[in-house]
């Protein structure tokens, strides 16, 4: 790939008090690429995603999205970032449409009513547009948070265990959505705990252990068993 990577991490270190979570982490993700990140609980996957999302400042090293340093130029980086994390980022008392209108307007867009309706339709929530989010399932909430990005068009998607809590239909939907995001030139970095079909969309696999990347390999035709074996080898503990 000749273009600059959309995600570039170099020598990243993050210490919380006495606990060094990330220690010398290097990673690059290019446009049209999806990287799946495996690692034990507490290995630092979420921390890395938060640093890239400009939510946490690194102790040392650099993290940059679309050429903007996340610590020194967070304002420049934010419009290019779409974060899907554990928090649903929705107001429970508002409807799907109202939530979407709020978040997109706050992001500086001024979507028309038809644009909002169209975004909801592309995440298959058009029928629930006027229902309060309080009544939504986990899958519906995740789809709603992705609806924002249909309008905001970030270049990078950062996902923290996006498939957890979803039923099969929702998982399949998410897979297709991520594939088309990739096809559109976006970059994806996804933290995950599973070795199975959720990895299908990933082009590369990285394993996070000891605060750094222990393995960075193309996913190619690795089977779930292959992945599990690699995981165990590089993290020295049972999944």
């Amino acid at each position: 790939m000749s273009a600059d990577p959309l995600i570039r991490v170099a020598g990243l270190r993050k210490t919380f008090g006495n606990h060094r979570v990330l220690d010398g982490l290097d990673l690059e993700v290019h446009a049209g690429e999806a990287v799946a990140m495996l690692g034990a609980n507490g290995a630092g996957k979420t921390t890395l995603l938060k640093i890239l999302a400009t939510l946490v400042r690194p102790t040392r090293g650099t993290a940059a999205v679309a050429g903007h340093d996340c610590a020194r130029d967070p304002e420049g980086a934010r419009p290019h970032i779409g974060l899907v994390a554990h928090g649903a980022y929705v107001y429970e008392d508002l409807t799907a449409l109202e939530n979407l209108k709020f978040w997109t307007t706050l992001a500086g867009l001024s979507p028309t009513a038809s644009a909002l309706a169209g975004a909801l339709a592309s995440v298959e929530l058009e029928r629930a547009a006027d229902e309060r989010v309080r009544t939504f399932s986990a899958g519906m909430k995740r789809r709603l948070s992705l609806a924002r990005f249909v309008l905001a068009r970030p270049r990078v998607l950062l996902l923290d265990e996006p498939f957890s809590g979803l039923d099969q239909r929702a998982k399949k939907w998410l897979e297709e959505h991520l594939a088309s995001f990739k096809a559109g030139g976006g970059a994806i970095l996804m933290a995950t705990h599973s070795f199975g079909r959720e990895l299908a969309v990933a082009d590369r696999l990285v394993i996070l252990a000891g605060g750094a990347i222990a393995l960075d390999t193309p996913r190619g035709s690795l089977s779930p068993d292959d992945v599990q074996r690699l995981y165990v080898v590089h993290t020295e503990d049972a999944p």
Partner: protein
Amino acid sequence: MVRIVGGVTLVALAAGLVMAFGVAPREVTQGNVQRIMYVHVPSVWVAYLAFAVVLVASIVYLARRVDGADRLAHASAEVGVLFTGLTIATGSIWGKPTWGTWWTWDARLTSVSILFVMYLGYLLLRGMIEDPDQGARYAAVLGIVAAFNIPLVHFSVYWWRTLHQPPSLMKPGPGTMPGVIVAALMVNFVAFSLLYVYFVAKRVNLLRREAEAAA
């Protein structure tokens, strides 16, 4: 370096003491208790100096994220609270034999007490936030708000007390005082300022070593 400052401070404090208790004249109506003014007035001046430093250091920290600025703000706030407390205590001690009461809502005591509570709140805030980066940022914002509040406190309390009442006994203007008294005040002011610098320097060193140990 800090030890040299410490040494000079000791000399200055000794000089200040001599000036206050030996050289300066005994006040006619109040007696020797009035000499406490030589501690009380310089204390409040140094407190204001300390809080001005907090303001500048806070702004520098938010603008440039220099950790040293944060440590300076923290140390200066602590020493400022110390001197503010000293001002209140000496004011109270001065007041008891002079007016027969430990406390009075006169302009200076009231203003200084409000400052005392504001910056105690500053220290409380710092103590309650674990993340050092967040603590530094929030403290800097509070330091700025508190500093801009100082002139508001000044005017409001002064008008509150003096529009219907005569000004307090504790506001001697330097222009109306004999030279010896002014000299004694100045020596003590210099001594207390040096003490402030000494305390802040030691505190900043301690904070820096704590930060380095944690990293």
